[in-house]
């Protein structure tokens, strides 16, 4: 395990060295998406929202649920699989994942967990928030170069692919 760690470190160093001899070249990488919402704790129920960047799929009873990365959860009535229809969208800033049991959605909202009741899927009801469960991740999920996080610009709710010039942060 330790060996693997060292090998990885050496790999990283080698990676940095390789990237050094291409000065000012643009490289593929990731940049943080900062929350534009004043209150990242506001969970809002909407009738529907366009699907932008689907990240997770989930089946619960006759519903097909889709996480839109960093935005929230679409709920589609999937009783007719040839014609799924959106019955509601739960706007959860920073949301990346969720699971459902007994009509309760358990979802991440940046560092918190939120619980939403979907007994009536077209009228979801916010139930509870458990604070500070998840760590703040200051780097993207994927490896490579990324734009360093600037905490003064807000809370990081996701990462997007971009071209970076002379990136300072690597993973």
């Amino acid at each position, binding site marked *: 395990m330790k060996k693997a760690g060292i090998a990885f470190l050496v790999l990283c160093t*080698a990676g940095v060295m390789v990237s050094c001899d291409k000065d000012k070249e643009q490289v*593929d990488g990731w940049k943080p998406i900062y929350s534009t919402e004043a209150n990242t704790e506001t969970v809002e129920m909407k009738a529907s929202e366009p699907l932008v960047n*689907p990240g997770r*799929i*989930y089946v619960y009873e006759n519903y097909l649920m889709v996480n839109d990365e960093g935005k929230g959860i679409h709920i589609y009535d999937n009783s007719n*699989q040839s014609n799924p229809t959106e019955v509601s969208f739960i706007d959860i800033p920073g949301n990346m994942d969720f699971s459902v049991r007994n009509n309760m959605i358990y979802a991440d909202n940046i560092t918190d967990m939120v619980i939403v009741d979907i007994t009536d899927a077209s009228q979801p009801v916010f139930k509870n928030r458990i604070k500070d469960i998840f*760590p703040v991740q200051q780097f993207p999920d994927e*490896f490579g170069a990324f734009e360093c996080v600037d905490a003064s610009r807000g809370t990081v709710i996701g990462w997007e692919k971009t071209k970076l010039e002379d990136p300072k942060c690597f993973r």
Partner: protein
Amino acid sequence: MKKLRLIFAGAFVLGALASCEKEEVTTNEDEVQVMPTTKDQASSGYGGSLSQFTIVDNYLYTIDYRTLNIFLLDNAENPALTESIDMGVGMETVFAENGRLFVGANDGVHIFDITDPRSPQEVCEFNHVTSCDPVVANDNYAFATLRGGTECGGSLSQLDIIDISDLDNPQLAGEQFLMNPYGLGLSNVDPNILYVCDGYTGLKAYDISTSGWNIEMVMEKGDIDALDVISDADNNLIVLTRGGIYQYDATNPVDLVEKSVIPVQ
């Protein structure tokens, strides 16, 4: 460059090492089999293989880049964090099957026994080169995709087939070369069919009846940029793609008939 190659060679040697630190797991025969593609009980749902949250009975397991958290859901509106395990390694996905948790991490596949659901015991670890790797499993084999390239730290993209029939000694049983793999899932219609989402090269299906080096690709659907898959009840196949959510009639699991698309806008 030579140095790099050497390091990769070193990483491969490491990759072949599989370690099991703890004693053999006693699988509870009476345990209800938990498949990702069937409901573990009437009241819970199920996700694709990229999930970082999964529910088994009345426990919710979540992973993030460093911790495996276990929540007891008996009080549905107020889950209780019962355990938090610092893994010391980047984790990508969590998958539950037959009393085990399979965690896809940057350094390989970690297998936990959850006979005592609130206290997962790591029984086995199958290391490989650094990469991104969702994992699914049946009783005897785990299937993990390794997505290499600069994004994920490794160099190779492939499907690993790991024989887990002896958890003390997990063995690499086969490999398939892939281009840009993400999620994967076993067919609900035919347990010998494994779907693999190979990113921009599409959705592939493999016949795994010969599990190992001889598994054969039996379908390649190149018109979608496939990221994850759920083989649902009613022969329905749900595929997450960059373009939207596709649903197919998979009555014939290798001849998919499109039913609907929820397009990305």
